[in-house]
């Protein structure tokens, strides 16, 4: 048989990202929770803490200077980790993943497409949150490279963890519960433990460029990427496409 030309890998990836975007924006729920929800939270926090001046409780920051980057971190966590784990579980259960597997689309293109989609959503989300934060006296990001590194590292690591969790759970109904269990919400009381888990390092890495005029935070980025690598390993070994495994 003669050689049939394939689209270039990049064109295939762009094709995949475009349709991921389309599916995402068409679903009113996902768009609402990703973009409207964080803004509503900022407005509530702004009403509650808008007048709180810099204090030692917030590491010398004002309440909103502390909360806005944290809300940004939780948003990225939500769209990269929680959303991805739940969406993949549902897609597997419905047979959407099996339908994808029935085509020649390589697995790497499917997952890179998802990752690119999640990064795009995260960048938009953080831009929106920082923009709204300006209304509450949060400064313009001081260190763009550090912000980009934290965003890219965080999105990639949480995507890998999201795929890993989707690989380990069996049915879609369990996904929302498991997603909460595996990564407890950022806790100041458990600083030492949370420092070794991925959420707090991500929050710290975002707080740096967004509120503290700090540069690249190598230590926290390292912890984050180590989790990402562990997640990727689990995902590669355990991910299933078929709703009815053997």
């Amino acid at each position, binding site marked *: 048989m003669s050689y*049939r*030309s*394939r*689209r270039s890998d990049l064109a*295939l990836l762009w*094709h995949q990202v475009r*349709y991921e975007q*389309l*599916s995402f924006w*068409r*679903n009113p729920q996902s768009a609402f929770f990703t973009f409207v929800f964080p803004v509503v939270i900022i407005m509530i926090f702004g009403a509650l803490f808008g007048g709180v001046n810099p204090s030692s409780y917030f590491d010398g920051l004002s309440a909103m200077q502390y909360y806005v980057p944290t809300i940004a971190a939780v948003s990225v966590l939500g769209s990269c980790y929680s959303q991805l784990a739940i969406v993949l579980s549902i897609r597997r259960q*419905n*047979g*959407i993943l*099996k*339908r994808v*597997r*029935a*085509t*020649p*689309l*390589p697995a790497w293109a499917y997952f890179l497409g998802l990752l690119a989609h999640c990064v795009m959503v995260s960048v938009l989300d953080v831009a929106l949150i920082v923009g709204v934060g300006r209304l509450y006296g949060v400064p313009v990001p001081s260190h763009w490279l550090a912000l980009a590194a934290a965003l890219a590292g965080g999105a990639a690591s949480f995507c890998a963890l999201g795929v890993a969790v989707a690989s380990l759970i069996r049915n879609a109904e369990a996904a929302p519960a498991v997603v909460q269990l595996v990564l407890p919400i950022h806790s100041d009381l458990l600083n030492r433990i949370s420092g070794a888990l991925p959420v707090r390092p991500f929050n710290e890495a975002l707080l740096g460029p967004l509120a503290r005029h700090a540069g690249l935070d190598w230590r926290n980025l390292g912890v984050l990427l180590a989790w990402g690598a562990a997640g990727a390993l689990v995902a590669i070994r355990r991910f299933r496409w*078929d*709703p*009815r495994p*053997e």
Partner: protein
Amino acid sequence: METKPAASGAVVVAGLRKSYGAVAAVRGVSFTVFSGEIFALLGPNGAGKTTTLEILEGFRARDAGRVEVLGLDPGDRAAGRALRERIGLVLQDIAVEPYLTVRETVARNAGYYPAPRDVDEVIELVGLAGWRRQKVRALSGGQKRRLDLALGLIGGPDLLFLDEPTTGFDPTARRDAWQIVRNLRGSGTTILLTTHYMEEAQALADRVALISGGQIVAEGTPATIGGRDTAGARIRFALPDSCAVADLPLAAAAAGDGLVSVETAEPTGTLHQLTGWALERGILLERLTVDRPSLEDVYLRLTSSGHGAPEPVMERSTR
């Protein structure tokens, strides 16, 4: 059975085995699908049809046996992409993104193949032209199956797998789907389908393999499978109360449901003898029929493990 060399087979299966734990789902299945034909795996639910198909499609690993699909081994991960570019799959229990439209869904998958067919042409072919801009979630069950078929065809496959393609279709939709499949064969596509509908195998397939309990129990064309062409005819009728089976001029047996059955290799003469006897005595042979074993009779005989086969359904009636 044909004795063509294995090389001309689009699909070659030899000694295929697969167990799920202690349950043996496929127990030594062998068959060959030749290029350009429609081949049907016919059998009841749980016979091993879908497991066999899923091994050929690369979704499941086999325990033993040789499998070749378009010259490639579907169990070989490295061959996966090259194989999937040349095969089309219409599966059971699958879905697509609910928020995309019909056209977007087909166009999305078209982008995965090196030489896809025209998106609008395929949509038209499966009868969804009026629903191009409809969201997938708003489609009816039958329309979703048509969309599945479109996704199976969009890559312009050399070989198409259809797993129970018309389950849940109404009779009109089924005939439309059959015509699409025949047209595909006309354009050179090889088709391997599974079905538990006798009439589907009869209407579509060039050759049929009857699968039961994980084994192939018969193979042939729909007209000859299970010795249908050489089997004797069967004359059945009811006798009035005044007559007994022993009064008849030929060997007969009670066939249940108050009917008497006569097996014969030469129905013309036998029928003449029988009706002559009845007319002489002024006896009316109620519910008189002559038939040969239908595909369904063969199916029921071969899939019911020997005994307790239900009463067969009449295929032709002389009444």
